[in-house]
């Protein structure tokens, strides 16, 4: 009962952003809302945003699938080593990557620059699931197709790609949502999207109707992506059939192609990791000891750790009841909860932040500009991420073990603490770590919501690089990347272990 109540409250909270959009729509009046939406500026932003998604997503898919195939299925030099390296770009926040490229090539701006930087930041989101799926595909299936008269190329298109479809779609959806939500990277490249425009509006006219209407269009874009992915995915679920040990696939001999394809791998890693790291290294070298202002950096680090730890703890705790219902209940309520979280997870941070600003100013002014509000925003934004981990952990606890505990005389709640929680602890830890890193590199919502005097690492970096003090920003970039590396590695190892799609 208590669990249901908590889950209900959380689910209600996840509807705040959507509710805010709808309520603003009615407050403004449909006529004025239409006037605010159907104007040339919105058309321009829409074109920009759509162009960005339409270019970046296919490029990332081709790159991600190609690299995954190279690393998992061929004898390209150093194949054991490339796996973690190609996931490492996830540790570099997109706005840091952008800073690296702009600093190295100051003339970069506009669509092409945005596509390049976004591709270099986000292709691992396709690479990671595709590589994991490729490892798991049963080679016997491909061999059967060979015995049925298909050549290697045909096997790839008729057998391998269809089985990768879910991984590709999932990765593509994530990339699309990231593109819609990203703020810092595109501001640096002077490329206007809905998110950057909403932010601009907020700075000039606070939470006015114009900005809110833009947010409404942005939410529609997100829902379109979700719907499109659901439509393409259909009901497909490809589990490996049957039991028995699975043989590892034989790597394909590339012959003379090894060298040029090795070059491609080097170039991609150079673009995704080399450029930002080189820029940071160069500015640190030029800035020398002067940029390491320990007092300021220490303060930023302390505040970031405080915020991130609080958000990680609260988000993971909130994830438990929701995950519990999702795993153990087959009711419609459970599916509604899952759906609600799925939709919230797709909403950009700026929409959530805007909604919270509006709601607190109208109903709970004391909360406005407090740390509490920031943490609530983080929890709303990152609950779905924590949920994925916690739910997987809970799903692996056999109900039978809990029943044994009950039969040995423990109460339901004691069983939860002595059996369930103990066995879910690793999953909960990885959920907390995921949220921790996401918060410590979060920029958009933090800029909007943080109380005066807050200086997180991301904010400090953003402020300094905005004043073109690239050397001063470098230490913050370095600290954020270093903090994200362990979690990125955890993601990588999890993807290798993951069972089932």
């Amino acid at each position, binding site marked *: 009962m208590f669990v249901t109540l908590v889950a209900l409250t959380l689910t209600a909270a996840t509807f705040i952003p959507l509710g805010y959009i709808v309520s603003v729509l009615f407050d403004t009046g449909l006529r004025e809302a239409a006037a605010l939406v159907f104007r040339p500026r919105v058309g321009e932003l829409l074109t920009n945003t759509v162009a960005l998604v339409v270019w970046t997503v296919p490029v990332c898919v081709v790159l991600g699938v190609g690299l995954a195939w190279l690393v998992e299925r061929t004898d390209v030099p150093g194949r054991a080593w490339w796996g973690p390296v190609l996931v490492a770009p996830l540790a570099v926040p997109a706005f840091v990557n952008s800073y690296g490229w702009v600093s190295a090539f100051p003339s970069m701006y506009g669509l092409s620059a945005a596509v390049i930087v976004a591709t270099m930041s986000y292709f691992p989101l396709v690479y990671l699931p595709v590589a994991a799926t490729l490892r798991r595909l*049963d080679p*016997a299936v491909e061999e*059967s197709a060979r015995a049925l008269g298909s050549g290697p190329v045909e096997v790839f298109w008729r057998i391998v790609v269809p089985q990768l479809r879910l991984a590709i779609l999932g990765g593509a959806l994530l990339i699309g949502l990231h593109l819609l939500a990203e703020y810092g990277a595109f501001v640096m490249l002077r490329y206007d999207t809905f998110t950057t425009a909403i932010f601009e509006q907020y700075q000039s006219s606070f939470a006015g109707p114009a900005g809110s209407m833009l947010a409404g269009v942005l939410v529609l874009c997100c829902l379109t992506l979700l719907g499109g992915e659901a439509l393409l995915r259909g009901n497909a679920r490809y589990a490996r*059939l*049957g039991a028995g040990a699975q043989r590892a696939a034989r790597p394909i001999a590339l012959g003379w192609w090894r060298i040029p394809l090795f070059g491609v791998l080097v170039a991609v890693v150079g673009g995704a990791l080399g450029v930002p790291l080189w820029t940071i290294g160069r500015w640190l070298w030029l800035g020398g000891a002067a940029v390491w202002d320990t007092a300021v950096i220490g303060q930023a680090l302390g505040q970031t750790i405080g915020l991130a730890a609080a958000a990680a703890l609260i988000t993971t705790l909130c994830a438990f009841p929701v995950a519990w219902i999702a795993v153990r209940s087959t009711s419609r309520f459970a599916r509604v909860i899952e759906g609600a979280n799925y939709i919230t997870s797709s909403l950009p941070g700026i929409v959530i932040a805007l909604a919270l600003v509006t709601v607190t100013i109208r109903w709970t002014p004391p909360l406005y500009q407090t740390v509490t509000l920031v943490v609530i925003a983080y929890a709303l934004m990152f609950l779905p991420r924590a949920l994925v981990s916690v739910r997987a952990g809970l799903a692996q606890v056999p109900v039978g073990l809990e029943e044994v505990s009950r039969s040995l005389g423990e109460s339901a709640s004691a069983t939860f603490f002595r059996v369930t929680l103990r066995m879910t602890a690793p999953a909960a830890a990885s959920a907390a770590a995921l949220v921790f890193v996401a918060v410590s590199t979060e920029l958009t919502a933090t800029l909007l919501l943080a109380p005066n005097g807050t200086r997180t690492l991301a904010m400090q970096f953003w402020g300094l690089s905005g004043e073109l003090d690239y050397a001063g920003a470098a230490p913050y970039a370095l600290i954020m990347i270093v903090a994200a590396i362990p979690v990125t590695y955890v993601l990588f190892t999890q993807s290798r272990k993951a069972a089932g799609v």
Partner: protein
Amino acid sequence: MSRLLVRAVSKTFGPTRVLDHIDLDVPDGTAAAVVGASGCGKTTLLRVIAGFEAPETGTVQLGAETVVRHDVCLPPQRRRIGYVAQDGALFPHLSVADNIAYGLHTGWRGLGDRLRRHRDRDRVVELLAMVSLDPGYADRTPHQLSGGQQQRVALARALARKPDLMLLDEPFSALDTGLRATTRQAVADTLRAAGMTSILVTHDQEEALSFAEQVAVMRDGRFTQVGPPEQVYHHPADLFTARFLGDCILLDALCEADVAKSALGAVPVQRDAPTGETTLMLRPEQLTAEVVTAEHSGTVTEVDFRGPDVILTIELAEGAGTVTVRRTGIAAPARGDRVRLTVQGSGTAYEK
């Protein structure tokens, strides 16, 4: 004509020699079984014949065509083979009908035909009937099928292209015991009806003996014996083969002129048997135990009831060791009964 001829095929993985000069001749329209413990190389042999692995030396000839020569190795899609993997390896993203129709149109030329797939419907139904499945299964997805049904669909898919040679890689090992026997019988009947040459790879000796006209026992990359099932079962070439294929009774015997004298009396053995001190091998079902009051040859020390039959452990008189006897469970001797043993058929003698 689809006779399979394997000559002197060798294959190494790193330092281990997985196949060591393998010869195998499977006449047109017959079934052969390769049986051995796991890791003995039997699956590698099958993969060489299928074209998934290339051997270092040797030739493989399928019908009139040489598919493997020292420098030529035809890719699997151009050999006329059917292949059924251990767990069926059905394509998880295709329906049963699409799985079966997969091989009917392949390559660029098949592209147009694939789009007009309703034409394959009759053939799919026909193939489902061949493997005794209802046409209603055509629109199911593979994970809606039981293990035995998946295996039958995999066979139908392999049969669709009318291959010259069917390769079965432990296709029944993932099934539970009851299903295994019926599925094996159904597959064997289907293949026989189609007059297809086939090779079954398995680690289950009973499966090999019942399935094939020719059984090859493999150990460490070599065949220890190749021959008809009765021959290899009753007259194994060596003790390893004897033990691998079933329970054995081993007794010391003095052998002369193809007759072995042991604690069980004189037993005829194979032709050209070694002479002098030998080990005599008999199968437990060759012995009959009759309860007697005098002139007994042993005492029953243990009765192991197994449903259809019982295994009696009998201690021979004068400390000549123990033997096991397999017989029906009806009116079986009890523990402590004194019995007289007689031997049916002939045994096999091995040099000591």
